[in-house]
């Protein structure tokens, strides 16, 4: 695997950057909710199926609100991804950039994700790295319905989460809809 070393700025000495976001700073800087999982389940996304939609469908059928998952290995026959980009000129720190079409067939090198709820149903947030058909590693943000499993499918390790879940809410500080950990109010016992 060749990395793009020419764009790495080596041995930079300045202090870590703090950036000003457009909204009021939230008082709680780290949010946590604790649940439990009977996982991991080993799933296989079959050729021709979308990775994100397959995960959404599985957790919907199981009846849980949230899951952690990793796409472990497999081939990809069609892929579009988004990246992040500076947006300082327009008042936000960063924004999405893309979509970028990755040349396929691509090989999945690794992909992490969380599934949660939103006002409009399940939402998946997954980031991954793929080796494109030219042998270059590419990432990052998977676009639902645009990441299609190729020959042999894609293997998933999935941890359904009970008693806690991620829910997408408008974040005043950044201006994005973001996942927030929540306690599952339907749970009887506090697992902590």
């Amino acid at each position: 695997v060749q990395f793009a070393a020419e764009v790495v700025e080596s041995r930079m000495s300045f202090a870590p950057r703090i950036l000003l976001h457009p909204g009021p700073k939230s008082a709680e800087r780290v949010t946590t909710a604790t649940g439990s999982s009977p996982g991991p389940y080993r799933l296989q996304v079959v050729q021709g199926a979308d990775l994100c939609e397959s995960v959404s469908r599985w957790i919907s059928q199981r009846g849980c609100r949230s899951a952690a998952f990793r796409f472990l290995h497999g081939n990809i026959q069609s892929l579009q991804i988004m990246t992040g980009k500076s947006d300082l000129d327009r008042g936000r720190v960063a924004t999405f950039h893309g979509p970028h079409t990755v040349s396929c067939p691509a090989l999945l090198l690794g992909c992490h994700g969380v599934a949660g709820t939103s006002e409009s149903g399940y939402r998946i947030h997954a980031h991954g790295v793929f080796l494109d058909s030219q042998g270059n590693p590419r990432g990052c943000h998977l676009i639902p319905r645009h990441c299609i499993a190729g020959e042999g499918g894609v293997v998933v390790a999935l941890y359904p989460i009970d008693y806690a879940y991620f829910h997408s809410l408008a974040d005043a500080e950044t201006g994005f809809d973001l996942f927030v950990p929540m306690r599952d109010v339907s749970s009887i016992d506090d697992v902590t």
Partner: protein
Amino acid sequence: LSRIALIKVQPNEELYCGVESACRKAGISRGLILSSTGSLNDAWLLRPCATGGREEICVSGPGLEIAGLSGEIGFDPNGCGTSVFTGWVTRDDTTVTAGEFVRGRNIVCITYEICVQEWVLPVAQAVR
């Protein structure tokens, strides 16, 4: 069943500090990262160098996406964090750089969402 902590770290918080403080709050003294997504202002990574040892590099952002992060969360007997995270970051052109995230230098950009599984089994001291 094993306990899972769902964590969100806000912008401008340091990656290790955020995750370790959340684990302390959840009562998790040792944990395994199941999955995570998020972004960084800039990425500071340690990589092996040809002359031996390791070098620290910075990939300039903001908006660098963390494409995959693996590792464990732990604390020494004094309660100081000993976690180690390795992974990949991607730039806006989809290119990728990998390494070990440098403690104290990786600042969350928009959000960092992570699921940590509590590690309850005995930890092996050494294996040959």
